[in-house]
């Protein structure tokens, strides 16, 4: 089910939005008891919106590029009146009084939100096992994780419950689950999509992006949600890029570097998939070369200081005073402590402590300062690499989906699964993951394309070529 086709059919009156949305709920009812991609569903609201849209179409109104398309929203994006919990006990039942900018844009484009998807608590994790409300299962094998943190959004698309969903990517949280679930996932240039209304994990790294079953749908969704937002000071003063119209431009003459540092630790089947994807690009006229960016090896350590440091500050506001969970205490400090102790899960607590320590007097320069210097080195190294290549190709994740419970007892092993995706976030660049065949375990493999700031148009063109050349 193509989102683009669905929207056209709905706009043309070939199908009603009500019918499309009802069909999405039927798929959810059929599969989500097992998969648990959704934390909450907005059945009445969604059907009501679909009916209203159908009336507007009957009246001949222009209804936007995503008319009637059902979409899943990661549970860290604010939607008026709909529970936005970040899969955390501390925000359980919290209903925002405002819409995130992406929600406003989706509504204006005619898309219909059907529910909020599961995630690792506050987007901290790579398997969706850190959700306070239960794990999400990989639709390709329910004993495997869907990846994370946007595991619910990836699984919902992979299981054909919705054609589109939104995720957020701080260190790989869109691309990694997209790879593990066999769907397209895009992390746009930092600042291309407004963060207003995205509950912050690590503000300098967070970026909202699309999940879709194909490159074209992902491009369409990104066009809708991108663009300057005066409510987000870090929003780029750029119009939304034109992607769908230029999708079939091809890669002839494009210089693409296969980055050995983005294959380190990759299993054989993943490495083979990357090599095959490179061959597809070469066959389409791209100039391939092998490159190495050793500084990318600094990424993981730098990330696990910068992201927790920002998170320790961003998550301070969950103190029991204004909203969310409150556990009473004898005085305000006791109330704060008890609320946070009861409300946050282990991984969130681990990162708050790590970040608090990294920013402490006397340690700031050795940890946070050093991490920022490493970040600068990575940015410089990428800039140098993009002097000789237009895009970079590598693995999205070192392996296919791992088993539920396999890594949840070993945080460091879990952190390693983001090793290929993290450098992009540190640089603020765009990158995407495209499905490319299956591993020996018959689980999906994703290959990753990386580009410099605002190279989305080129990235999507190359992704389209890979998609068309991918094994059936």
């Amino acid at each position: 089910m193509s989102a683009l086709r669905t929207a056209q059919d709905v706009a043309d009156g070939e199908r009603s939005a009500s019918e499309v949305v009802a069909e999405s709920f039927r798929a959810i009812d059929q599969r989500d008891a097992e998969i648990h991609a959704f934390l909450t569903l907005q059945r009445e609201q969604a059907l009501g919106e679909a009916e209203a849209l159908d009336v507007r179409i009957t009246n001949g109104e222009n209804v936007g590029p995503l008319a009637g398309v059902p979409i899943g929203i990661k549970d860290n994006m604010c939607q008026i009146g709909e529970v936005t919990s970040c899969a955390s006990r501390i925000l359980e039942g919290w209903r925002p009084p405002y819409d995130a900018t992406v929600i406003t844009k989706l509504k204006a484009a005619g898309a219909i939100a059907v529910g909020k998807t599961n995630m690792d608590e506050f987007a901290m994790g790579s398997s969706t096992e850190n959700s306070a409300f239960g794990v999400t299962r990989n639709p390709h094998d329910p004993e495997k994780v869907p990846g994370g943190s946007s595991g619910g959004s990836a699984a919902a698309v992979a299981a054909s419950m919705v054609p589109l969903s939104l995720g957020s990517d701080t260190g790989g949280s869109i691309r990694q689950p997209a790879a593990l679930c066999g769907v397209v996932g895009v992390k746009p240039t930092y600042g291309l999509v407004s963060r207003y209304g995205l509950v912050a994990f690590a503000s300098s790294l967070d970026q909202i992006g699309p999940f879709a079953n194909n490159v074209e749908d992902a491009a369409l969704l990104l066009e809708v949600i991108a663009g300057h937002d005066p409510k987000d000071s870090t929003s780029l003063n750029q119009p939304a890029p034109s992607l769908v119209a230029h999708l079939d431009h091809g890669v002839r003459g494009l210089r693409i570097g296969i980055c050995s540092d983005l294959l380190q630790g990759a299993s054989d089947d993943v490495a083979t998939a990357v090599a095959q994807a490179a061959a597809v690009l070469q066959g389409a006229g791209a100039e391939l070369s092998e490159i190495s960016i050793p500084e990318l090896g600094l990424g993981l350590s730098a990330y696990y200081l910068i992201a927790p440091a920002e998170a320790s500050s961003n998550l301070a506001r969950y103190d029991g005073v204004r909203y969310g969970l409150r556990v009473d205490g004898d005085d305000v400090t006791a109330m704060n402590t008890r609320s946070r102790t009861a409300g946050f899960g282990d991984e969130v607590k681990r990162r708050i402590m790590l970040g608090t320590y990294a920013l402490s007097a006397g340690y700031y320069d050795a940890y946070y300062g050093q991490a920022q210097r490493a970040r600068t080195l990575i940015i410089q190294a990428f800039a140098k690499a993009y002097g000789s290549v237009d895009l970079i190709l590598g693995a999205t994740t070192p392996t296919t989906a791992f088993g539920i419970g396999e890594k949840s007892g070993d945080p460091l092993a879990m952190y390693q699964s983001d090793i290929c995706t993290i450098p992009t976030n540190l640089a603020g660049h765009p990158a995407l993951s495209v499905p490319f065949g299956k591993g020996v375990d018959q689980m999906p493999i994703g290959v990753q394309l990386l580009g410099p700031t605002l190279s989305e148009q080129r990235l999507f063109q190359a992704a389209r070529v890979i998609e068309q050349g991918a094994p059936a």
Partner: protein
Amino acid sequence: MSTLPNGWEMVVGLEVHTELKTQTKLFCGCANAFGSEPNTNICPVCLGLPGSLPVLNEKAVEFAIRIGTALNCVIQGSSFHRKNYFYPDQPKDYQISQYDIPINGIGFLDLPDGTKVGIERAHLEEDTGKTTHVGGSGRIHGSDESLVDYNRAGVPLVEIVSAPDIRSAEQARGYAAELRAILIASGASDGRMEEGSMRVDANVSVRKGSDAPFGTRCEIKNLNSLRSLQRAVDFEALRQIDLLEAGESITQETRHWDEDAGRTQTMRSKEEANDYRYFPEPDLVPINPTQAFIDEIARSLPAMPAQRRVELIAQLGGDPTQAQRDQLMAAVELNVDSFITGAIHAGVTPAIALARTANELAALGDEIFSLPLDDYVALLKLEDAGALSATQSKAVLADLVAAGGGDPAALAKQRGFEKLDDGSLDGILDEIIAANPDEWRRYCEGDDKLTGFFTGKVMAATKGQADGKAVNAALRTRKG
């Protein structure tokens, strides 16, 4: 100026927080208003709701630069940091403030006494909400409940940090008064200490002689008026001297000024101080004002108090008395000197314009700023021409301000103020002298102190309608 015993010298630096008079808050579009119903000027941003983001108010940047320019600061490109600490009235549990590069760097302020006080920085930051403790003790410990009003959360503040250049409590008061006048003159702030829109903390230490290294300092909070500031600094310096002379040492700490008890008390020690874990605010971009913007602000800045004092002295002509100098200082400090200048320009006798403005008008509150200058001038002209006595003039002035302007002659008539003719004054004097023969004898023998006694009697008998100058003249004539 009070002097400290045994060659001790105090070293004082002040940190002044001033709210900016912007229409909206620092990072959102909520009204920046004092006195609204609790939690009515709030939104997702200033409540720090999950997902909300700050957007810098450009007017606040302009106002901060005005203050920096008025304080001769280096205006520079700057950025924001987060200052992290838990407190219920702080919605995000961090404050967006400036850290290593403030918008206004080094500057100075010249005190009227000629002292130059260095300014270390004047940076932008957001204000917190206000907590009220209810039930039980009504204090933070032992109350039943705490209520938080977030109307003030996110109101723009500039924190002005002086160098430790102040050497007496009077000077500390003088600095705060001059700074307040500058803030008001800059148009960036209303400087109301009683409403908390200007708040002063004092860092006080003492040392033996002016060449000795600085001593350990204590920071004093809760200084709600210039008077409290002066008293607290004096108290604190003497407290520290007593301790040192008794062979004890000073503990670096934050102390609370208890206005009623007239003493400072320990609030928290250095060990209890927070580690604020400052780091660059990732939700905001650096502020880089253009030179043209900075120059335009400098050009548009009105005359500052020091210059206005010089201009006023020139307008008064001659050599002002000490009393007149005090009046002039007060007039500029309270930002009422434009009334004096206006009145003198309109032909009112300078001494009357100065005295009435500095002594009476300035005491009538903020309503005076809605009083049309022409009405004020008309009143002073009546007094100047002898049509109203000083006492009557003051009474009519109060009416005039309360009414927001009007015709002073008509208001005088309403009060029944008619100038007494000399004949009725003679008659009244006759009666008073007859009733107080002893006092009259002593007055005639040269006891001038009794002038006031007789003037008072006349005023009482005429319900203030007599002209004080005419009474004095009549008394002198009769004495012979």
